């Protein structure tokens, strides 16, 4: 019994000791990268890194933005590392910002970089934006614009139920299966990060930018919505879950929607059904469906609201 306890204790010690804690450093001796941005100008990749310099007193913590250019993202990141007075830790980087200038081969190079770099998490959130420098200079609540943008996305999911599915592995998975993917578009509004719509890509080329109702419908159809709200005559109605069943027939996307509505005293099921039907049939972003093999149109075949 005594030996078993000793063995168990030694195994428990191993759990913590053999967990790769080599090269232990104090947290204030390094920069925590919260966002990484990629742009291209003058045939060179320009990489931006927003870093958090964490101090013992949280009020003294601050964020800084470093940038450098290189013929590849690796070279640019290497130059940024050389510029920084402290070691940069990329493991907890939450956001990757992609410039709207990047497309085709350049965008693929950036995606390959994100895929191959061991220190970057596959769960990193992707956003496209017009001006990375402008976005990263926004006023931040959490000392970091990178983490703030992630929170904006999470809040949208909480309030509207729309899930952007913009984690890098979710996008990479779509690229492998369909070649098409969409990325939320971030911008600075009143010096705060905000999401204005979504950009749809096919084979790394931008196809269309969706906003408002179209972005909402696109997400319901292709990303799924775990619940949230549907706007009916200007009033937001809470729904528990919206799921879609899609079928492509002769180049037309036939949609079946099942919506579980949170009933109150006066049921608005019929109004919600009409609203979803109208949103689908008036979807103006048909171009966004081309990467998915839909050439003609989109049609609500059956909308069921319970």
């Amino acid at each position, binding site marked *: 019994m005594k030996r078993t306890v000793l063995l168990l204790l030694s195994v428990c010690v191993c*759990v913590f000791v053999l967990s*790769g804690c080599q090269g232990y450093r104090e947290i204030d001796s390094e920069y925590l990268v919260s966002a990484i941005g990629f742009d291209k100008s003058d045939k060179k990749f320009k990489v931006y890194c927003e870093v958090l310099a964490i101090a013992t007193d949280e009020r003294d913590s601050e964020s800084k933005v470093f940038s450098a250019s290189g013929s590849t993202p690796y070279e640019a990141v290497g130059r940024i590392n050389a510029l920084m007075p402290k070691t940069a830790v990329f493991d907890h980087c939450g956001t990757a910002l992609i410039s709207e200038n990047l497309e085709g081969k350049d965008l693929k190079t950036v995606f390959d970089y994100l895929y191959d770099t061991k220190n970057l998490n596959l*769960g990193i959130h992707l956003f496209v934006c017009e001006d990375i420098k402008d976005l990263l200079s926004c006023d931040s609540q959490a000392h970091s614009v990178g983490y703030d943008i992630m929170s904006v996305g999470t809040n949208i999911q909480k309030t509207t139920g729309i899930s952007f599915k913009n*984690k890098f592995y979710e996008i990479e998975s779509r690229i492998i299966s369909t070649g098409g993917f969409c990325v939320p578009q971030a911008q600075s509004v009143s010096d705060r990060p905000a999401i204005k719509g979504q950009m749809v890509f096919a084979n790394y080329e931008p196809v269309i930018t969706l906003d408002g109702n179209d972005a909402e419908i696109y997400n319901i159809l292709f990303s799924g919505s775990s619940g949230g709200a549907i706007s009916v005559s200007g009033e937001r109605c809470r729904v528990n879950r919206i799921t879609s069943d899609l079928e492509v027939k002769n180049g037309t996307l036939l949609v079946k929607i099942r919506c579980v509505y949170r009933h109150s005293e006066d049921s608005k099921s019929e109004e919600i059904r009409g609203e979803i039907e109208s949103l689908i049939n008036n979807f103006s972003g048909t171009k966004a469906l081309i990467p998915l093999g839909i050439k003609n149109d989109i049609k609500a075949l059956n909308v069921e609201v319970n």
Partner: protein
Amino acid sequence: MENSKQTPFYIALISCFLAASSLLKAPFYKKSVTPVIVSFVAAILISIGFCYACDFVLRRITSNNIQRIIAIILAAAAVAVATFAFMEYTEFIYSAVLLRASKLLIKAVFAFCVFCVSISKKEGLYKFAFLSVLLASAVFIIMFLLSVKNFDIRNLSGIIQLKYFSLKQTGVYLLKMFLPALAAVLFIVKNERQPVALPILSGVVFGGVIFAVTLLDSILTFGLPLAAKLTYPYLSDISTVTVGNLFTRMDGFAYFAFFACYIVKCGVCINLAATLVSEKYKKILCLLLSAALVIF
């Protein structure tokens, strides 16, 4: 110890072997979308058939010389299993965990650990395997539950659509998972005088469940095509696990599970090889074989 009391230890040992074969690099043929279920079951049936065929042949051999030759062949096979496991684990450590550490140092430390495990008594090895599987299972279950929020149920359609049987994929399962696990079976059979068929089968089932849970975890998160493309799918999967906003990169907690399963696999194989060659010089042979692993 009675056979029934030993059963969990046998199960744990075989589970360690199967887990160590599938945890790091998922056994996919050429990293492509391949059939999973049919080939997996076929590989289990073939390996069990192989096991019984060997047993049938060995029982009919009475010549000492032939027995000696067979023992040396089996010892060489055990060393090969240990070598591949050693290479896979050390490559994982210096390419994914300790990026800046010296390769030789990593290999030397792991080889030393393998030596320490290989010279243990069989009871010690069983207990270590049992505790390792216990902790590893706890880690896998916790990681699975924490990953649930990342799951996309539509990713399952990739598996459901796989209707056909692939000989190549069956071969990958056999070579990578089930034939190496026969070293554990041989270790048990050599050390025990009682029938152990049922515990061995239970071990295969339990190891298969561990493999299925970790594979399902990766497939539900990434989808089959991406899971097949990734070098370390399960590790990548658990690296995306977050608990609230505060705890990210939980993959560090699973490293011990990987370490324990691989060290049991390598240690048992070295022990088996040394025992098969010479009981008298077992410790010296364990030392030489463990040291030789550093070359690879």
